[in-house]
């Protein structure tokens, strides 16, 4: 059995904007072992977020193969991908993307509506996830009543609650001050080291990248190591 959590094989991604075709990734190949914490860095337009979206099953490659946890996700239909995401990936965004009409607890519980868990079990799991991120006392608060750091913790709890093996984080500290950013990155580190979560994080911030086990650099749609080779 492979030790890879993510295998990207010769992936190309072309976007069509009107009549224009933009090739964002050019035959990219990448392996991320289970339990790794990878920071993806690179200038704007280098294809970091595109790669993250492909690994997270939010988008499909134009060509090439993507295996996550042994599953070929580039061949899945939209409905199958949605199911796959619900069980296998947790997402953390730069601007948190919480539901403003729900409390912290409700936001964390949201992905569990896709499971067959009872209402009480869902509530219990959400409470555990909030406890992991240290926000038990803010469970009944709505996002607008929380600070940026607290909102991001809720988002991390939401990403964790279904117990996925892979977390994809798109600039999770991009909207936070240094101190709060370090707290959030510390939390991701704990999730990686103590809970065995594989984490792929896009960041512009070299200090944030220091929290990862390794850093990969992208430029013009290719990994720098690949480009050099």
């Amino acid at each position, binding site marked *: 059995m492979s030790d890879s959590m993510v295998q990207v094989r010769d992936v190309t991604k072309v976007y069509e904007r009107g009549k224009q075709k933009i090739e964002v990734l050019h035959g990219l190949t990448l392996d991320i072992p289970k339990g790794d914490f990878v920071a993806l860095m690179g200038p704007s337009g280098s294809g970091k977020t595109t790669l993250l*979206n492909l690994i*997270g099953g*939010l*988008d499909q490659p134009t060509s090439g193969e993507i295996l996550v946890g042994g599953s070929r996700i580039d061949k899945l239909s*939209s*409905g199958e991908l*949605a*199911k*796959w*995401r*619900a*069980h296998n990936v947790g*997402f953390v*965004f730069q601007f948190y*993307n919480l*539901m*403003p*009409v*729900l409390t912290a*607890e*409700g936001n964390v*519980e*949201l*992905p569990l*509506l*896709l499971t067959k868990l009872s*209402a009480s079990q*869902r509530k219990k799991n959400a409470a555990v996830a909030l406890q992991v991120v240290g926000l038990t006392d803010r469970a009944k608060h709505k996002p607008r009543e929380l600070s940026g750091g607290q909102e991001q913790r809720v988002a991390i709890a*939401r990403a964790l609650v279904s117990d996925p093996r892979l977390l994809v984080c798109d600039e999770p500290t991009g909207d936070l001050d240094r101190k709060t950013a370090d707290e959030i990155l510390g939390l991701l580190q704990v999730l990686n080291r103590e809970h065995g979560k594989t984490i792929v994080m896009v960041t512009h911030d070299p200090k944030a990248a220091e929290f990862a086990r390794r850093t990969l650099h992208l430029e013009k749609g290719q990994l720098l190591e690949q480009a050099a080779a």
Partner: protein
Amino acid sequence: MTKTGFVVANLFRKRTRTILTLLSVIMAFLLFGLLQSVNSIFNAGADFVGATRLMTQARVSFTQPLPLSMVPKLEAVPGVTRVAYSQWFGGVWQDNTPLFVFAVDPQRYHDVYPEFVMPEAQWQAFTNTRTAMVAGKQIADQYGWKVGQKVPISSNIYPQKNGSKAWAFDLVGIFDGKDENWKKQTNQVLINHDYFDEANQFGKGRTNFYILRLSDGDRAQSVSKTVDAMFENSPDETKTQTEKDFNLSFVKQIGDIGLIVRWILFAVFFTLLLVVGNTMAQSVRERIPELAVLKTLGFSDGSVLGFVFAEAFALCLFGGTVGLLLATVAGAMVEKGSGGQFQLRPSATVWLIGSAAIVLMSIAVGLLPALRARRLKIVDALAGR
């Protein structure tokens, strides 16, 4: 948290907007309930009447009276078993409250309308007392009239010979209907035609319309043709129709109520579609990123479509139900206030049509936003494209 809770929470994200939209829906369905009931009232007069009666009036209009000399001729038409006649009195009670008052021949009327029930002694008293009147139970109850009292009723058409339009009649009987439908028709007053004919200042020996009782409902068409042919090219040409058609054409003197109601409701619902449709479209437009997050978390395209549809349905269902309930309450109050004369309470049929309207409106206002939500691509929506 449940899916229903999530839908409700989203519905009230802009509380003021949702409440105002809900009020529009409630108001539309309140109007729908009341106007459909008005329409039913006007049509109800036609639905239950027997097929064994024909109404004959002047061809031009029933306001143009016909001579009583027609009675024997009408009675001689094969298939006609009895002829009654009825004259519009233009009754007014107290402070200009219009009353349905008709001058009739008591015995003939009794024979032709067995559906109106009253003790035989009271029919006799009506026949034998020149100044007699009998009142329907609904109207007698409404004004608290008792048998034996003298009831002053004015006419806005016919003065007495002394020039006074104030008349007074002796109430000798109160009639009821034989069943629920006919009980609803007891909002009229009958006076003795002989007395009216003698005492009024205008023309004598005339009436507004004849009521022909038939031996067999199947002969209605042939009898009406025979009657109208009989008076063709005479000074008193006639128009004979079934009681149902007569009732409908009587109502249409006011206007085509059904058409008026349909147009009002069309305008109301068209406006409502724009209001609710705009609310739904706006609501989806402003949370495209949230819908994308739902899909990111693993909700399928169909689930997201379902959430948006559920919001549209909840809005229409709640507003529609409250509107129809208010129409029921308002209708009951009008019914009570009018002594049962105006039965505005929405019937089961109105509720059924209302329910169908709720479903149709939900589809109409929810479909496009729901499809938009279903179609959105996660990466584009998250990137704000």
